[in-house]
Every structure is written in C-alpha cells, then in structure tokens.
C-alpha cells in the first residue's frame, strides 16, 4: 500500500478498496476493465492503482490518447505540409516530437521550416491574421473534447474571411474504435471506464450502445484516483448484483458533477456543421475504421488543408520494432514491447505511445520503471 499516502483522502481510498475487494471476491471470473482516456491512463500509473486493485480486476488501456492513435502516414503528411514554401505549420506541443518516417516536426523546424506549437487553434488563427503573406496550417488532432475548439476556430476564420488559414484535420470520434475493439475479438473487455472530458461534449448517452448492443457496463468517471476507484466499484456492483448476467448492463455517470447525459449541445451542433464524417480513417494499431474520422464539411472547404494542398496521403506502416498498435488496443502492456525502455524512451521515442505524457508507454516509463526487466520484476513481485 505504498502509494496510498498520495491520496487526497487515504481513508476514503481505503474504504473503497475494501469494498472493491469484497465485491471482487464474489466474481465468478476475473474481469478486464478498459479505460479509454489518456488522462485516466496517466492517473492510474501515477498512483499505482493497478497494484492496489485485486488480481481479479485487470485494467487495460485502450485507444484514448489522440496523439497516440495518429498513424505515421498522417504525421508524414504534416511534415510534408511543414516543408512547403510559404507555409507555417502550427500544432499542439505534444505533436512536435511524434516521429514520422524520417523526421519529427521538431527536426523539420531545426532544418529551417516554420513550425510553431500553439496552446489553442485560436492562437494559430491569430498567427494567420498577423502574417497574411504566410499560409498558416493548423495540424489538428483530438477526440470530441478538442474537435469543438477547431470547429469554433474554423467558424471564426469563415466569418472574418481569413484566406491564409486552413486546418489539416485528424480529429477522430470515440464510438467507432470502441466498437472495433469489441467486435475485433482480439482483446477481451468486460467493462469500460468512460472518458470524463469526451463525455462533457458527447454526453453519457454516446456510450449507451455498449450495454445495449454488447451488454457491456460503462461508468463515465473523472480524473481523481478516487474517481477511478469508485468507477471500478460501480462496475463491480453491476456484475455482483447479477445485472450483467441478466443482460441488464448499463451506463452510469460517476462524474455527474461535470458531465450531463446529453453532453454539450452547442459543441455538438458546431461540430455537425463544420465537420463531415469521413467514410473511413486510419488508426494506429486499429487500422481503417469506418465513420471514425472528422473531415471538414463542404461549407468550410476553403479552409481545408487537404483541399488547399496536394497532401501526399501515403500510408506508411509503423516501424517494425514498435508495438504501439498492440499497446493501444490493450493486447499487450507497455513493458511487454520489445523496445520499451531500451531503444524507445520518452527522450528518443519510436512510437507515439512513448511521446505523449498521456500515452500508456510514457506514463508507465515516467513513474519509476527504468526498463522492461525492472518493470516485470516490480509487477511480478507485487
């Protein structure tokens, strides 16, 4: 229990863990709980929650980190855009170190390209206003948490008629990859911890297909260690009460202090207008998933970088050594990857999961596991 002193309220955590242990002992078989938010991954590793939970509960990390799920071909497209004369490429700081086939954006910038990281897409728009001679492209990534921000930015570009701004959209939606994982059958998932921030936009309703179609329980939760423990407890109750066995799994909202069932209507309406759902989109580790990517709608096509530029759009496989795809789909744990902690570290990442602090590999690496064997020893000893 060495991590418990880090809780805001150790007593509450102890009580929850005790309840969890009681319920877990009533399970007929172990359950695998998938979390689908980089923030949750970060909290779980930071607080060693995996070591505190009974063995009958396995936490697996799903494709919840938007930086991690971008396939290498799209990174190469961004690098190509950055190299075009007269282009200023803007993006979030997390994207700067993501490796493409040959370079990262940081390396392209060192070689003379105009690449700038921004806090907000609105900052990218501001750069376009101030530099009317430059073509300013915003390399956009993110789930529904972030997509509305890009939508508002595009709306402002349209209203202000800013001609030298465009968006290279890599926005994705949360439902299709979950469906792909459940249907794919390669990862056994018994329950989901739902992403709090995405749910503020899409609402808890967006996850109802999981119990309705697959009888899989979902608890949407916040980012405190106590939130996650409570979510695990609520999920367990659905199992031990017999509800799941009776085919009555459901979505519960542990994060009602922030999340509503309907989500954010202004955000959803804006997204519907500004984006159009792509027929298919490539995900690292999951391959092509139908209706999973947000392209830019016809009305805003003048600000669509993929229409403005002849983006190569070549598909590129992941580096052979990198098992990011298996990590992202929960098939393996970070330390089971061949290059984890040796050739691939946060300083010299090979795969996206090691780049973003919210990626499972970086989160696992950063909190005391120096290499794969140390990690295995730690976990086995526990």
């Amino acid at each position: 229990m060495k991590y418990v002193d880090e809780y805001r309220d150790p007593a509450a955590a102890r009580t929850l863990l005790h309840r969890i242990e009681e319920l877990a002992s009533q399970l007929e078989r172990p359950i695998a709980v998938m979390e689908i938010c980089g923030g949750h991954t970060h909290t779980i590793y930071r607080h060693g929650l995996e070591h505190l939970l009974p063995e009958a509960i396995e936490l697996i990390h799903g494709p919840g980190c938007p930086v991690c799920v971008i396939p290498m071909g799209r990174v190469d497209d961004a690098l190509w855009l950055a190299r075009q004369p007269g282009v200023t490429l803007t993006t979030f700081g997390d994207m700067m170190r993501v490796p493409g086939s040959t370079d990262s954006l940081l390396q392209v910038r060192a070689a003379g390209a105009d690449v700038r990281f921004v806090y907000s897409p609105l900052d990218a728009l501001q750069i376009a206003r101030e530099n009317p001679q430059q073509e300013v492209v915003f390399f956009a990534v993110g789930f529904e948490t972030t997509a509305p921000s890009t939508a508002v930015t595009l709306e402002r570009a349209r209203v202000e008629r800013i001609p030298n701004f465009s968006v290279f959209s890599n926005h994705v939606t949360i439902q299709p990859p979950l469906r792909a994982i459940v249907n794919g059958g390669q990862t056994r998932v018994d329950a989901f911890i739902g992403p709090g921030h995405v749910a503020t936009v899409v609402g808890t309703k967006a996850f109802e297909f999981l119990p309705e179609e697959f009888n899989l329980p979902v608890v949407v939760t916040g980012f405190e260690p106590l939130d996650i423990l409570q979510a695990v407890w609520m999920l367990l109750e659905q199992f031990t009460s017999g509800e799941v066995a009776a085919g009555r799994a459901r979505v519960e909202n542990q994060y009602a202090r922030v999340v509503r069932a309907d989500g954010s209507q202004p955000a959803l309406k804006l997204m519907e207008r500004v984006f159009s759902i792509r027929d298919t989109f490539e995900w690292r580790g999951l391959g092509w998933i139908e209706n999973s990517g947000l392209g830019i709608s016809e009305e805003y096509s003048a600000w669509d970088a993929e229409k403005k530029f002849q983006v190569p759009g070549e598909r590129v496989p992941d580096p052979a050594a990198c098992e990011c795809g298996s990590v992202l789909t929960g098939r393996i744990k970070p330390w089971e990857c061949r290059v984890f902690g040796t050739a691939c570290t946060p300083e010299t990442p090979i795969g996206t999961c090691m780049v973003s602090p919210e990626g499972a590999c970086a989160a696992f690496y950063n909190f005391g596991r120096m290499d794969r064997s140390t990690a295995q020893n730690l976990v086995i000893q526990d």
Partner: protein
Amino acid sequence: MCLGVPAEIVAIPDPAVPRARVAISGVERTVATDLLVDEHLAPGDWVLVHVGFALSLIDADEAAVTLEQIKRLGGGTFETELKSFESSAID
C-alpha cells in the same frame, strides 16, 4: 493536450462576445466561451479550460480538487500546461 484545467472567471469584457478573462494560478488570459453560450457566466464562476476554450462550468470545490490532482500528476504536467496557457494570445 487533453487536460481540462480549472480557471476562475475574473471578467466578461463584453457580454455580447463569447470571451472571458480567466485566471489559472494567477496567470490571466482570455478564453473562448462559445461552447458555454447556454450558461450565464459571471466573474467568480469556475470553468474547465481546454486548449483555450471553456469546456464546462464547474463548482469551486470541484475546481480545487481537480487543480490539486493535476499538480500531483507530476512530471511537470501542470507547469507545462501553465506555460502553454501563458503563451496564448487569444483575444
């Protein structure tokens, strides 16, 4: 990039324009409030800010707990986010 950071609204410069001045740990910047047009935001309210946008209205207790949690994530997470917020020029 996925963080939602609690910020306190210090001013609504023009109620007709979807913007608010907010403060995170004493750093004051402007954020967009387009996503909260249905709320009646006022100075003293707390919002979760994500990439320059107020994403949701929260209460002061939730703000305090969330802020503490982000600081405790370590690895420079909060400092990096604050520095990034500080670099913003949204108006």
